[in-house]
Each structure stands twice: as structure tokens, then as C-alpha cells.
């Protein structure tokens, strides 16, 4: 009888310690997006639906088209992957996971030319949008979302 509380505490501690591991296997969607203003805008891709309002309000475009994307399921938080279009490449190198999210190193290439590099702590609840170079009448955006 006297050991019962100890067992309960041990079980609760195991559950608590196991919880982050259960949450670890999450998918990060990375996309190269061209934002434009057109007369007949196409529907927004489903991956961007949850931030559609913010994209339109913040960048002022009415159409968002994905020209390259990648979905990576993270298990260790140390993976790396590439999302590419015909001319651009977004290289993502995950460098660890915390309770809040993933530490990522991002590199945007135009063909073999490094345009932009950044380190970010990507939260599981907060998407990241990077404004890239002007492309024609539109804008290249890099979007990362933990799904």
C-alpha cells in the first residue's frame, strides 16, 4: 500500500517523458511559392490555406502558386531536405529539436548561386514565410509549415 504512490509517480513521469518523443514525428512542409496579382486568381494551394489571410493581407497579392515543394517527416530532428523548382532550390538542414520546434538552417539557391541564408527556430504552431527576390511581376516566397 505504501508503495502505490511511488508507482503512480513513476508511471506519470514515464508518460510525461514519453510525450515529447510521441510528438517528435512531425512533418514539415517546405514550399517555393510565386505570389502574383492576376485578374483571375487560382484557388490557393491546400498547404497554404491556414495562412491564406495573412499572405494576402501582408504581401498584397491575390494568387499564390507552388512552384516547388517538399514534405519531410522529421524523426530525429537532424534531417535535411531540398525543395526545388526549375531555377530555385531551398535547402533545409534541421539541427535539432526542442519542445518548441526545430532549429533549421535554410539556404535559398538560384541555380548554384546562394541568394539567402538564415537560421530559424521553426515553431510547431507558427509558420515561417521568407520574402525572396522579385520574379517578373510577382514575388518568390519561401514557406515552411509544421503540419
Amino acid at each position: 500500500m505504501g508503495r502505490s504512490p511511488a508507482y503512480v509517480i513513476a508511471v506519470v513521469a514515464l508518460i510525461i517523458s514519453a510525450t515529447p518523443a510521441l510528438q517528435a514525428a512531425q512533418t514539415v512542409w517546405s514550399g517555393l511559392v510565386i505570389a502574383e496579382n492576376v485578374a483571375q486568381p487560382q484557388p490557393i494551394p491546400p498547404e497554404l490555406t491556414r495562412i491564406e489571410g495573412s499572405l494576402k493581407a501582408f504581401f498584397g497579392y491575390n494568387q499564390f502558386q507552388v512552384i516547388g515543394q517538399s514534405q519531410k517527416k522529421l524523426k530525429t530532428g537532424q534531417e535535411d531536405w531540398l525543395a526545388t523548382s526549375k531555377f530555385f532550390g531551398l535547402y533545409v538542414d534541421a539541427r535539432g529539436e526542442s519542445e518548441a520546434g526545430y532549429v533549421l538552417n535554410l539556404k535559398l539557391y538560384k541555380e548554384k548561386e546562394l541568394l539567402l541564408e538564415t537560421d530559424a527556430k521553426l515553431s510547431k504552431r507558427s509558420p515561417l514565410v521568407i520574402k525572396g527576390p522579385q520574379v517578373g511581376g510577382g514575388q518568390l516566397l519561401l514557406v515552411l509549415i509544421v503540419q
Partner: protein
Amino acid sequence: MKRFEEKWTAWLDGQLSGRELAEFEASLPDKAAAEAEKTGARKLRQLLKDQLGVRALTNEEFFSHQIHERIAQESGDVSPASGRHRIESSTWWTIPRLLSAGTVSVAVFLVCTVLLMHEKKPTEESQYLTQILNARVDPVISPNATVSIFEVKQDRVTVLWTEGLQSLPADYAAK
């Protein structure tokens, strides 16, 4: 002049004599009953003397008694105090004190909880938002480029805003 009760007591004790004794015995209405009562009183006195008399202590008992008395006197300062301490220790956790202690504990717990929540709130809030740790633009390709960071509260979106990057023709929008 002695009253009858005084003479009766003196007669019982055998303290009357001579003429006084003769006069008293002559005044008794029933001398036989009085003699019987006198005999009974003597027996009672003897019985009380035998049973209730102070027993003389032997030497050993006397010294033992003396030593116990001394010990009791010398420890007299401690015993009452220790007794008081026992009473105090047994009565310290009274219900009012328990209630006070409980109230104080709950108050301290609440204060600590509120303080911790206040301290933790910004941290938890920042954990929800993606953070840009640093950003670099190639100064050769885009020498006038700048970067800014914005947070869009609506969808908790973090935006890394670059300005001055090299513009590209529309062909680069190809999939």
C-alpha cells in the same frame, strides 16, 4: 464548676478521683449502663491507638525516605518544567494553529504559482512563434539588400522580409 459533659469525659478517661468521683457516680441515673459505656470507650480508644498510630521507621527506611525526599527536591525545578513542555508539545498542533498553517501554506502556494505563471507566460508565448536567429544575404550579388523580421499575429506567422534582392525575369517562376 465543671459541667456534666466535662465530668463525663473526665470519668471516661479515669481522671476523676476522691470526692468528685463519688459525687459524679452517685449522680449517674444508671451506673451499670455508664460502666458498660466506659468499658466500650476504653476498648475503642485502645483499638484506635493500635491501628492508627504512627509506625516508627527503621534506620534503612528512614534514610531511603530522606534520599527520595532530596531527589524530589533537587529535581523539583526540572520536573514541573518538563511536564509543562510535555503539555506544550502535545498541545502545540491545535486546530486553530493547523488551520492557520494550512491557510498560510495555501497562500504561499498561490503566490508562487502566480509568480511562476507571470514569469513563464512570455516564454510560452515566444515558444508559439517561429524565431529568426540570423539572416545573411550575399553582399556581392545583392549589395543593398536588407532584412527585417515581422510577426503576423493573425495566424502566428513569422515573416523574414528581404528588401533589395536582385530582381529576376518572369521565366524564373517556372515549376
